[in-house]
């Protein structure tokens, strides 16, 4: 239990005017300080490899997507944002996605798909802007999700570095 000690005001404080002037001087000084506001479209947000933006599919250097449409990300997605239809291909991996859609309005950018992927095919990019005039336009299909590997390289390296420590600890046990 704290007891509030009433402070005796001095004459200057009870006159109020000196204190008013003191307050005014503070606000006047603050007027010339740099605004904290970020002018958003002109000054974009700082992005690092830790930025967990919208998920994107990796296109390998040979021009094919790394995805084999195993459905792990689809299962891991807590928001049911991912829909995959697999199909056959002549390539040695034999399977590739025919349809791969992420409903960006459902996606909560949690990164579970990135964690679940066994083929390093889906990564969280640093793309954050999401705006369109219809809901349908925000369901991204395969072509809209494709990104060259180089564009995602920083994130890929970061995820590898992050996963490194799990490998170490599991080898000791």
């Amino acid at each position: 239990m704290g007891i509030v000690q009433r402070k005796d005001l001095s004459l200057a404080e009870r006159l109020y005017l000196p204190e008013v002037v003191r307050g005014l001087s503070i606000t006047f000084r603050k007027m010339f300080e740099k605004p904290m506001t970020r002018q958003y479209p002109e000054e974009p947000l700082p992005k690092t490899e830790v930025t967990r933006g919208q998920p994107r599919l990796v296109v390998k250097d040979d021009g094919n997507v790394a995805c084999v449409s195993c459905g792990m990300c689809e299962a891991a997605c807590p928001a049911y944002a991912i829909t995959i239809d697999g199909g056959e291909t002549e390539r040695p991996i034999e399977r590739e996605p025919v349809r791969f859609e992420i409903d960006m309005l459902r996606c909560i950018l949690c990164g579970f798909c990135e964690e679940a992927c066994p083929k390093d095919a889906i990564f969280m990019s640093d793309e954050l802007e999401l705006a369109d005039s219809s809901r349908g336009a925000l369901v991204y299909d395969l072509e809209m999700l494709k990104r060259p590997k180089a564009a995602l390289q920083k994130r890929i390296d970061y995820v590898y570095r992050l996963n490194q420590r799990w490998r170490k600890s599991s080898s000791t046990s």
Partner: protein
Amino acid sequence: MEALLIAVAKVVVIFAGMVTIAGLMSLAERKVSAWMQYRHGPNRVGPFGILQPLADGLKFIFKEELVPEGANRLMFRLAPALAAMPAMLTMAVIPVGGTVVIAGREIPLSMTDIDIGVLFLLSMSGLSVYGVILGGWASNSKYSLLGGLRASAQMISYELTLILTILAVVLLSGSLDLRAIVAAQQHVGQWNIWYQPLAFVLFTITMFAETNRHPFDFAECEPELVGGFHTEYSSMRFALYFLGEYCAMTVLSCLAATLFLGGPSVPFWPAAPWYVGVLSLLAKAGFFLYLFLWVRWTLPRLRFDQLMRLGWKVFLPLALLNLLATGAVVAFTHGAQ
């Protein structure tokens, strides 16, 4: 004919100037508050947001106008005009500068030549209460009515102090004519602020109460009264109240500059050309206008009983004492004449 043309030209210039200043004040209010809070303020419409008042005005005109059920329609529609008009009328008596010679004619830079300018000004400022209380009453809303009542009670009590402080200045210069008051303080040493510092402080504080501005803005005390007397207003009529408020601020700032800071006289440059005089008045009034915004974003609002106590128990006696002392000094120094 020529005299009529000159009068019309003056009316147009003064009216346009008032509306422009009011518009700029609405922008300045948002800009200054933003700067004091580390923000940018409106900066999208035009360079530095300078066209924001225009955009606001357009928006207000195109908005739907609502009249609440059970409202007194005539009074409801009339009240905003009654609130804005006296403030603009008051500007008529404030001398904006000396005289100009254009095309061989001497034109005094004030809209009217009446020699009881102070009296006219006070009666007009008394009228502005009607707009507020009628708007509050005609809205048929308890918040509006309470806001209007508070505003009128406050404006009437602080008007006493305002008048008494002005009277002290009138006593010193011995005239009710604002031009004579200006003429009596051509040099910095003659400014009334040096002879009437107490009246100056009282006038400045009373100014805030008279225009219902922070920290005395009980008329639109948001936490208690939603929006005060203009709660039910929308569209251009709502804007008209604000136009009136900004005009009243402008007029009182000009008046403070005229009464205490020598009006359009330029410090240390008695032979300044007329446009420098006008700029000088604008700069002095600008300081007071800035003070309105500055105080608004610094001080918290008073309680209503504190406001009344301050007005009746502190300001009124102080103003009376000041008037008494001034009267005594004037009587003893000039009484022999």
